[in-house]
């Protein structure tokens, strides 16, 4: 089957979603990231791989946090970085996505990091860019956020290397979450035998079970004996639109507290893609507790993004 992310000989051309990536490529990214983790601890935190290359962060949807991690990753690879916040500039002047992309191509960009509020935007851009350009999806609508999922599984693999022996639970707003969709594919591709989702029915897509997950609506049952608890961010606007009655009730039923976490395995770890809503989806005592790996996730995020960029840049 045609796969827009791969070259004809099966190498990574763009990173658009985790779905459709062979296990070998995911493993290559994670292994390469291991090498980059050490780079940050050196006197000089840079390697010359992308010297002379230009990476454009094109953010049609604002996210300082994600943009910063991509920027640091690109700079540590010695690339030049251009940040473009399109939501505030050209789109309001009627410039189309492709106009923006063409303009940056004319400025000899080599790699686009795309964030957009529409599912499929990164695929769309990848289909229309010049052949030498690589596209990284930094989040498109509800569809995918592949680098976040990769850093999540990288973190999990560091703490729990036996991936084919894990029970993992995703908790929260799966419906609106591109992170959840990418995490599910990353976990199942790496051979995690049991992936659970725990959420009220209003926060789950129809047919979510077709993604290969077990569905729970109850934290007590869903968290029982899991090795990894992956929390999802709950946007404040979910309190409107009849999805949830209140933040308080959500915290009571689906918020992660020490008591609920105690149902998981004693050595279970807790991840969160950030930014956290303390007291809504996660209790501070869990977020800052001994089982939390939320800060290491941030550190590893840079190494994983460096790995993705350097593998892509080398596949011409």
């Amino acid at each position, binding site marked *: 089957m045609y796969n827009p992310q791969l070259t004809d000989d099966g190498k990574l051309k763009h990173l658009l979603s985790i779905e459709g990536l062979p296990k070998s490529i995911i493993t290559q990214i994670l292994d390469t990231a291991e*090498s*980059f983790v050490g780079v940050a601890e*050196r006197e*000089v935190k840079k390697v*010359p791989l992308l010297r002379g290359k230009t990476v454009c962060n094109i953010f049609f949807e604002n996210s300082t946090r994600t943009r910063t991690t991509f920027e640091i990753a690109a700079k540590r690879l010695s690339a030049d970085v251009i940040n473009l916040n399109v939501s505030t500039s050209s789109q309001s002047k009627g410039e189309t996505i492709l106009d923006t992309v063409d303009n940056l191509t004319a400025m000899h960009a080599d790699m686009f990091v795309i964030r957009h509020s529409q599912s499929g935007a990164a695929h769309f851009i990848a289909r229309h860019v010049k052949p030498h350009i690589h596209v990284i999806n930094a989040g498109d609508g509800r569809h995918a956020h592949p680098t976040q999922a990769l850093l999540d599984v990288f973190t999990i693999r560091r703490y729990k290397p036996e991936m084919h022996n894990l029970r993992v639970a995703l908790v929260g707003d799966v419906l609106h979450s591109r992170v959840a969709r990418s995490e599910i594919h990353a976990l199942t591709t790496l051979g995690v035998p049991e992936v659970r989702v725990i959420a009220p029915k209003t926060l789950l897509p129809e047919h979510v079970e077709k993604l290969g997950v077990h569905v729970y609506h109850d934290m007590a049952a869903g968290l029982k004996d899991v090795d990894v608890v992956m929390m999802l961010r709950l946007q404040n606007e979910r309190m409107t639109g009849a999805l949830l009655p209140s933040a308080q009730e959500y915290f009571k039923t689906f918020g992660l507290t020490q008591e609920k976490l105690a149902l998981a395995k004693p050595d279970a770890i807790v991840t969160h893609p950030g930014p956290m809503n303390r007291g809504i989806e996660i209790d501070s005592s869990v977020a800052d507790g001994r089982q939390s790996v939320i800060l290491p996730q941030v550190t590893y995020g840079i190494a994983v993004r460096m790995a993705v960029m350097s*593998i892509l*840049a*080398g596949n011409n």
Partner: protein
Amino acid sequence: MTQPTIDLPDAEQLLSRLAEQLKPVINGETALVGIHSGGVWMTERLLPMLGKDIAHGKLDVSFYRDDFGQRGLHQDTLPSQIPFDVEGRHIILIDDVFYTGRTIRAAMNELFDYGRPASISLAVLVNRGGRELPITPQFCAHNMQLPADRNLQLMQDKAGRFYLTLEESQDV
């Protein structure tokens, strides 16, 4: 067309010879740094032969190679580990075969990102000729001239014994 057979030296003997060459220069400020993967094996074998508690580390120069633009990132990149302070050290880079000198250039660049060593020298089992940069090994157990279409590699058998192989390179 039959190629003239080339006699390859015994790698185990070369290793002992190299250890003899290195012994006199080892002191408290010395650090051995093996280059993946042959140089790392050699370092592991050299450490007991040199008989002292020597600082040591390993480098994978994938992130510093000058052919990244042509070949992309190496498939099996391994982490570099330099668990000692590079500042002021006398570092001996260890590699199996010296050829163009490009790997050594990359290794030196990487080393300098860890700090400023007092000196860097290079020890190899075989110098096969063909250097393309003003770099040459200071310690070398064997010299030979090989045509450019041959690829000389250090291997390890199941018992851990070293031997050399010569193959036609695939990418000339």
